């Protein structure tokens, strides 16, 4: 297991231009965007329309409120005016019932007093143009004094023209009055000789009984009040004509939408023209409540009941004051009118303004919808693309949060764990992968959650899947400020690869033995030559000895030759032993091995070959080289292969043919180099020379270097080669050294 720990991952700069171009690959359908834009834009603009409508409603209601409050103001002013006017009339009447000239007349009863009183009334009316008539009627109904208002001024009517009013309704009403009581007639039109006077003369008669000093009722005082002036004043208050109506208690218009609708109760042909019939609902409301508003017939009607005679003066402030008897029942209705046209005129600019605003907003909303739908389609396509890629990567790809729960998995998880990514979402790692695997991974997980990137190779035993070799890459998801929010996990199943590697290594070791046997063939030729030398020497020495002894020569010389024979026999034996050592296929031993010794052995083994190929083999061995634990047979095989290759490489060279074996000790262990002066290795091959079946030799298998590498790697060493600038090739391997060479 190898654990690399590169420097902690820095959070990516978000402002930097993205390095990849995946957004350019994403297919975005124009038609789809258009459809989405239209739908979203419609929704947006509909919502906006709703908002604008609500705003319009509020504004419109506001406008209406403004109108209504304006009307209420008018009503209020009109009410005030009515009250004031009535109060003035009442006070005039009270004055006339109590002044001295009247009392003088009542006491004396003479014509002089009567004339004086009449003149008094003339003066009075001349100043008070609101009154049409002022009369004094005796208890028999006979007018005693009558002053008429004329265009030229007030005019007293002479006695012969005075009439008896005993039959008139107001005489009867007046006769009922006691002291301090005032009679007020309904507002109607003046009638002369049984017909309504033209032009119309709206009129209210105020009357009260006249009592002398002794408290005896002596007559009746009647003031005819000209209501047209009052009506005009109210019209002035209303400003625009005909939007302030005045109704009497029966629902007839006193002031109406049209002159022809007014005074219905005075004209038999106008009986039907009354408010209560045209606006029955409002009328009904008016009966129930004194103040209110009602929409009817396209108009908004605000109404208010007015008691003109009951003003603020109260009994306590002026206890002796005369008052109208029916002042609580005497009422009119003031109605203000707001027409639909008026409202429309007020709302029109608002509608225009809102329509413009809405048009701009709707346009904008379509633009926004377009942008949004483009973005969302592109993002969707991007997500689809990435999903497809991530799902088709033959690795496990996941995102795990800080709570060690899966937040994202690719489809490869389904093949491993049988659960789809959706099923895995939110589940704990521990539960998904099983306890033993979790414990194996735990240190790695803790490391990555501490913010460190982890790349390692593990052998994990997943539940149900059996042991698997995996490479694990964990990349922490570091948030700004240094916290770890989770990590990205990429797990690659390399079980098959590992298995292949294991098998390959096993194979190569087996092959090493086979190839060693193959080299035994080579070595045998070598040995044959090497044995030939001593044998030839022995043969000749012995032949010489035989001849000398036969001819009776020097025995001393023969002795010397026998010694030589012996030495040569030893030499031959040594060669044979070397062969046996080389060919020996014993148990793999891990004893201490001296590379120096092996180098010498190999040189001895290849001596004759070197001679015949005319190659100079040099040894340059380090003194006190540490030994290395290993299999001496296999290591010797490696050196033999390298030396043999080197010799063959230089054999065809025209220049110096030299092979040098060097040993040295290093920090990491011991090192052996085989340098030659050959043509070197083609750069294109690189370290591929160590791959199987790469060879330059016509009869080679191309497995020598591959076997050498697997042997060295099996010993925990490294083999490589370099091509030094001065030419040739240097093969070099290092092995861990342990023991000191004695």
């Amino acid at each position, binding site marked *: 297991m190898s654990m690399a720990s590169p420097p902690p991952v820095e959070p990516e700069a978000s402002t930097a231009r993205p390095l990849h171009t995946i957004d350019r690959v994403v297919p975005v359908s124009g038609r789809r965007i258009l459809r989405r834009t239209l739908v979203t834009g419609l929704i947006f603009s509909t919502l906006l329309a709703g908002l604008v409508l609500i705003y319009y409603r509020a504004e419109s209601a506001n406008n209406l409120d403004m109108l209504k409050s304006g009307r209420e103001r008018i009503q209020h002013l009109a009410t005030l005016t009515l009250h004031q006017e009535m109060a003035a009339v009442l006070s005039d009447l009270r004055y006339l019932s109590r002044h001295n000239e009247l009392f003088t007349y009542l006491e004396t009863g003479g014509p002089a007093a009567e004339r004086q009183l009449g003149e008094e009334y003339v003066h009075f009316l001349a100043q008070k143009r609101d009154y049409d008539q002022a009369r004094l009627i005796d208890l028999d109904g006979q007018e005693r004094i009558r002053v008429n208002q004329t265009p030229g001024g007030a005019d007293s009517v002479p006695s012969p023209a005075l009439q008896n009013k005993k039959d008139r309704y107001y005489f009867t009403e007046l006769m009922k009055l006691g002291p301090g009581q005032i009679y007020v007639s309904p507002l109607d039109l003046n009638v002369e000789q049984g017909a309504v006077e033209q032009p119309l003369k709206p009129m209210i008669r105020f009357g009260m009984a006249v009592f002398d000093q002794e408290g005896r009722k002596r007559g009746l005082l009647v003031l005819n009040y000209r209501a047209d002036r009052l009506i005009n004043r109210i019209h002035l208050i209303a400003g625009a004509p005909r939007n302030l109506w005045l109704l009497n208690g029966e629902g007839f218009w006193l002031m109406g939408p049209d002159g022809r609708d007014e005074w219905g109760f005075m004209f038999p042909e106008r009986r039907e023209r009354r408010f209560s019939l045209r606006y029955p609902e409002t009328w009904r409301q008016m009966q129930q409540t004194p103040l209110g508003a009602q929409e009817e017939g396209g108009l908004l009607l605000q109404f208010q009941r007015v008691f003109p005679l009951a003003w603020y003066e109260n009994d306590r402030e002026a206890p002796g004051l005369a008052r109208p008897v029916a002042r609580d029942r005497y009422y009119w209705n003031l109605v203000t009118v707001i027409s639909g046209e008026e409202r429309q005129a007020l709302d029109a600019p608002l509608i225009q303004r809102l329509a413009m605003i809405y048009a701009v907003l709707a346009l904008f909303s379509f633009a926004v919808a377009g942008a949004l739908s483009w973005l969302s389609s592109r993002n969707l396509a991007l997500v689809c693309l990435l999903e497809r890629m991530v799902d088709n990567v033959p690795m496990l790809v996941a995102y795990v949060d800080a709570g060690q729960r899966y937040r994202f998995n690719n489809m490869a998880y389904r093949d491993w764990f049988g659960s789809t990514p959706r099923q895995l979402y939110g589940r704990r790692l521990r539960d998904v992968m099983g306890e033993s695997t979790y414990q194996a991974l735990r240190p790695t997980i803790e490391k990555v959650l501490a913010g460190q990137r982890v790349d390692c190779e593990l052998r994990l035993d997943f539940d149900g899947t059996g042991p698997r070799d995996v490479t694990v890459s964990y990349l922490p998801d570091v948030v700004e400020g240094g916290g770890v929010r989770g990590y990205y996990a990429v797990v690659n199943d390399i079980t098959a690869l590992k298995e292949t590697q294991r098998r390959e290594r096993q194979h190569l070791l087996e092959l090493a033995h086979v190839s060693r046997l193959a080299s035994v063939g080579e070595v045998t030729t070598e040995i*044959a*030559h090497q044995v*030939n*030398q*001593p*044998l*030839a*020497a*022995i*043969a*000749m*020495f012995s*032949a*010489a*000895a035989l*001849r*000398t002894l036969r*001819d009776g*020569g020097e025995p001393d*010389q023969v002795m010397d*030759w026998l010694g*030589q024979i012996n*030495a*040569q026999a030893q*030499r031959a034996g040594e060669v044979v032993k070397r062969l046996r050592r080389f060919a020996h296929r014993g148990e793999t031993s891990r004893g201490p091995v001296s590379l120096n010794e092996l180098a010498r052995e190999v040189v001895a083994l290849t001596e*004759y070959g*070197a*001679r*015949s190929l*005319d190659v*100079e083999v040099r040894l340059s061995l380090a003194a006190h080289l540490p030994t290395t634990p290993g299999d001496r047979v296999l290591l010797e095989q490696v050196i033999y292969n390298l030396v043999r290759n080197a010799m063959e490489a230089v054999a065809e060279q025209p220049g110096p043919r030299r092979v040098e074996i060097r040993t040295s000790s290093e920090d990491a262990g011991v090192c052996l180099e085989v340098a030659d002066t050959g043509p070197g290795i083609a750069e294109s091959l690189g370290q591929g020379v160590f791959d199987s079946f790469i060879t330059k030799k016509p009869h080679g298998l191309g497995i020598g270097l591959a076997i050498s590498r697997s042997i060295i790697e099996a010993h925990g060493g490294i083999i490589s080669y370099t091509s030094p600038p001065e030419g040739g090739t240097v093969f070099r391997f290092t092995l861990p050294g342990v023991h000191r060479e004695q």
Partner: protein
Amino acid sequence: MSNDYQPRIYVVDDDAAVRSALCALLGSVNLDAVAFDSAEAFLRAANPDLMGCLLLDVRMPGMSGLELQRVLRERGIELPVIIITGHGDVPMAVRAMKAGAAEFIEKPFNDQLLLDAIHSSLATDAEAWQRRGEMKAVAERLNRLTQREYEVLDFLVMGLPSKRIASKLGISERTVDVHRFNIMRKTGVRTMAELIQLCMSYRKQAD
């Protein structure tokens, strides 16, 4: 065979044991042997007047046996060569024989076989040595001739009569006869046939 012929066996082998064993064997049969440990060492001592034969190991560090053979021929050293090799493959033998080796012996060898080969080589060498001596004498005699006598000799060997020779050289027939007399006297031959034979053999040797 002249008494001046004193053959020696020159042994060139890089293996000391083999070298001394060969010397021992040759010594035991009263052959005079000189050993060299490399081709280069032998070349330093070699000259065309060497007598005897060369025992040569084909494979040696430095200059190989075959290469040595080539160099010897270039230098006109005609010593018979016996190749001894531990590697008796056929191509090697063919190459050695093509290069002019007299014998090819494989190690380890029967001592008698080697000695027989040595003896036969020595015989060849002795013959060659003698011929070399004769040729030397002929050459010496021919060297006494003047330039004009050489020209006349050439025409004589072609078998031209004196009259033709005289007309070719633009000299008198009598002068040709004087030259012929001098040639016979200087080379020491008595008849015309003898003179022609002498010239032919000399030319053959010179080729």
